[in-house]
């Protein structure tokens, strides 16, 4: 059963659940594309966790050109503006300054495109209705791919890593393959980078799940979530090692679940 079928089958019934279907329900070609896994989890959670009735619509969306040049906060604003334009009914927080009940996944580094970003929104709208009306008035680069009802707290729970495609300009396959082999063969691997004017060196080997060189690209599977390695670190490191001017384009392809 694919994701769309599950989404359609549950979204209109508004089943209260505290566990969002495992990320691999969302991500095409993810390592564990087993929807039963999600169902099992949902059933377990429902029976053991009392506070199970906060359901939200969890949306997987793209942040492609030119939207990837916007910061996390500006993206948040753009999504809120889109929801307003679409006139979608969403819940607001209480208090003096009510704001939309909207939760975002981890910020994406500025300039990195993504085909797998997520937000959860507290809405009574059906998934189909929400997606269609949102996409009709979304700014270029932002588009919801899929949406499903679930609990937003679990938006992060199952995330283990993310897969990125980094395309380099002016670096040959041989150079990339050499870099990849060097990293994968090492037990420890240090990367030096400059953050806010301060040079830092960190050991990152345990955060690199896999690297594959292909033509002028590297497919990088990196830890993502609580333990995180920014794709920019790898991209910049490649440029440093090959002594090439810094130019690359990175796209987050998908999320890897536990």
């Amino acid at each position, binding site marked *: 059963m694919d994701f769309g079928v599950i989404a359609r089958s549950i979204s209109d019934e508004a089943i209260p659940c505290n566990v969002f279907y495992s990320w691999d329900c969302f991500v095409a070609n993810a390592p564990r594309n087993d929807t039963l896994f999600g169902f099992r989890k949902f059933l377990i959670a429902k029976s053991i966790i009392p506070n199970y009735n906060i359901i939200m619509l969890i949306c997987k969306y793209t942040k492609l*050109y*030119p*939207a990837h*040049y*916007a*910061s996390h*906060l*500006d993206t948040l*604003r*753009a999504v*809120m*503006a*889109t*929801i*307003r*334009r679409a*006139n979608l009914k969403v819940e*607001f927080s209480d208090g*003096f*300054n*009510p704001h939309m009940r909207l939760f975002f996944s981890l910020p994406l580094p*500025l*300039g990195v495109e993504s085909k797998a970003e997520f937000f959860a929104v507290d809405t009574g709208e059906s998934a189909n209705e929400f997606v269609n009306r949102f996409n009709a*008035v979304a*700014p*270029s*680069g932002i588009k919801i791919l899929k949406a499903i009802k679930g609990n937003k707290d679990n938006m992060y729970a199952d995330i283990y890593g993310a897969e990125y495609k980094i395309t380099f*300009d002016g670096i040959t396959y041989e150079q990339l393959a050499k870099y990849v082999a060097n990293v994968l063969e090492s037990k420890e691997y240090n990367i030096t980078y400059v953050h806010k004017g301060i040079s830092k060196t960190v050991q990152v080997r345990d955060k690199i799940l896999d690297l594959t060189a292909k033509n002028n690209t590297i497919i990088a599977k990196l830890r993502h979530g609580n333990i995180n390695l920014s794709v920019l670190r790898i991209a910049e490191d490649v440029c440093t090692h090959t002594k090439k001017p*810094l*130019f690359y*384009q990175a796209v987050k392809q998908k999320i890897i679940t536990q």
Partner: protein
Amino acid sequence: MQKKISDKRLARLLQGVESPARYTGGEYNTPIIKNNAEVKFCMCFPDTYEIGQSNLGVKILYHMLNDMDGIACETAYAPRQDFADRLTSEGIPLFSSETRRALCSFDMVGFSLGYELGFTNILYMLELAGIPLLASERNAKHPLIIFGGTVCVNPAPLKAFADIICIGDGEDVLASLTELYKTCKREQKSKAELRDNFLSKATLIEGVYIPNRTQSVNKAQVKDLNTACFPNAIQVPNVQAVHNRAVLEIYRGCKWGCKFCQAGYIGRPVRHKSVEVLTAQAEALIQNCGFDELGLASLSTCDYPHLKELIAALVPLAKERNIRLSLPSTRVDSFLAEYGEQAGIGERKGSITFAPEAGTQRLRDVIGKRVTDEDIERSLTAAFGAGYTGAKLYFMIGLPTETEEDLDGIVRIAGLTKYLYKQHKTSAKPLTLNISTSLFVPKPHTPFQWEAQDSREVARQKQRYLKDKLQAIGIRYSWHDSGQSQLESAFARGDQKLSEVILEAYKRGCRFDGWTEHFKFDTWLEAFEACGVSINDYLGAIDKDTPLAWDCVDIGITKEQLLKIRNC
């Protein structure tokens, strides 16, 4: 010459640049830019994206031009230094946001000028675009450089850089200019012929001043704001703008006529929009833009005669769409208390903003500011009683006839504010009170256009005096840099000689002069000196019989009338 930048080239340019979304275009509600338009216009704003995207005037004109047949309008903002350096090092001329077309390949490049301290940024943008800075060095191959905006009511300091200067409301002038260009383009064979024919015909358009061709000019004026163009959808900025909200312009002009206020005089007569028109425009903006805030723009919103009806119409709209309605917090009386609560304003009571301008009733009478001590007291009492916990009070120092007593008056009002808060507060929060002063700038076309401005030393003395006195009673005091105000005065009342000074200062590295952190007053003084001009020549009192640099501009009020108002 390269005309359009590819996606890949842009990506390369933007790598590592701060806030790259400023330069990518693609804002929601960007109109489709006509590919084969006969007139290509680039609307430039000589400051950063965040400020330019908050400018309602630019947005109105941008959408108006794009709605016209055969006209395509794009935008460009002053890039920050990091991106400018990148453009220069890559040899790429400044380009428009929408189609990434180099500015030099447009037919017309217009600059919206809201304040004098933006002048060097015009040169900064022109240079980045590879367009000669001086009009005398440009030819038919270059775009026509057009200036518009409030500072143009004295075109003299800008003459050397401009091909055309628009005076007054921009809508009709720009529509006529672009239409005329279109017609001329159809008729002419060579570019030189087109330029010459266009410029000679353009002199006939009301509000158009063409250096070395125009003798005198009347300001252009939109007669009926209800029928004037106003976009149903405006661009939604990619990055947080200074004002990230939908804005309704409710009227132009101001009925009061304070003697120092240029906006009040050049905006005359007062023209209101009807509640029906405003409500329809608000509905469209809310629906099409998705902002979470709706603001009302005018010179003095509380004086809009139908404010009650307007708010009554907007409140349900705002409630239904969960939108904050931001109303001016300058008049807190029963009316705002009643509607403010409904509009959600009552829930976020912050600061009341008030501009008494002068510390004593005597000086307020001299400058024609019709605010009485009772008004101030009543407003503050009502505000604190309604739950406001802060006040921002704006004053001007250096006003004609000012004495120490007037400065003491500012301190007295500050003390009174503290006292009233203690008496009427409804919250345990301490009062946040900010007293702010700016230095009086004599502006053209006002009754005070002949007055002197305080020297920097005198201004500093007064600021120190206020600082000491206000600090003694525990009140925060902030002031506007007097160097910036001096420059503002010099350019506001400047003559043609200042073009040379602007160019010299630009060459010496001055730009973004409106930003305190970038403002280099010493460099400006050096530029004045290098050009053999003294800034002080522009800051003193002017004899009423001396011809003025802006005598060629008729804004609808004669010198005699201004003199009469000045003396009454």
